[in-house]
């Protein structure tokens, strides 16, 4: 079964937090090359690995992974704020 492509913000979040690929790999328990594959969106993580990544960055999983191409994080946060404010 061919799975669809998943988009993610791992590279942006990792750089923003100033963490190396090797360090992130060690924290989430994978090989550092796998972090590269994830960042290039050439590999879709398992649900368990996706949760580990979201727990490490302290963000909801849907802010890191998406089936649609991702907008810049700041735009997403503003949209979320507006949604909450409008309720």
């Amino acid at each position, binding site marked *: 079964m061919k799975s669809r492509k998943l988009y993610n913000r791992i590279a942006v979040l990792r750089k923003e937090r100033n963490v190396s690929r090797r360090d992130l790999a060690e924290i989430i*328990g*994978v*090989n550092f*090359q*796998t972090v590269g*594959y994830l960042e290039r969106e*050439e*590999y879709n*993580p398992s649900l368990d*690995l996706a949760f580990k990544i979201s727990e490490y960055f302290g963000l909801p999983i849907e802010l890191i992974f998406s089936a649609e191409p991702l907008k810049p994080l700041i735009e997403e946060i503003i949209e979320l704020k507006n949604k909450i404010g409008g309720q």
Partner: protein
Amino acid sequence: MKQTNSMTRQNRKLWIIVNYLSIILVLGFFYIGKYYDLPTLALIGGAVSLILLIFSFVKVFIKTQLWKLAHTSDKNLDERQLQVILSSLRYSYSAFTIITLAIIYGFAVAGQGPIDVVVAACLLYFAHTLPAAIVGWKEKII
């Protein structure tokens, strides 16, 4: 499993071809010696092919850690590496079965009886290296 690999995929492919060509050469010289009564040529050619086989094996399977990756315990692999290994084992199972059956069939058709010990040794080597070779052939980065 930690890995370091400086060889490009292009180079890996080239050395995998060299490695398997050298097995064919070893077999070729073995049969030259067996059927054409040219022991010196068979011995020298066989020795050179064997050296090439060992050299290319070390270069493409040991130095790139492909061998380690394909033969390590599942516990030492992450989920992506496990997927890569499982897929390579699936391909190598099919390829090995087809090639082995074709060789046995070829021997039977040619009236040669059971396969020679050198052919069996080459098939053993082929079975052991094929999963690693498929990983090296298919993966961009190991």
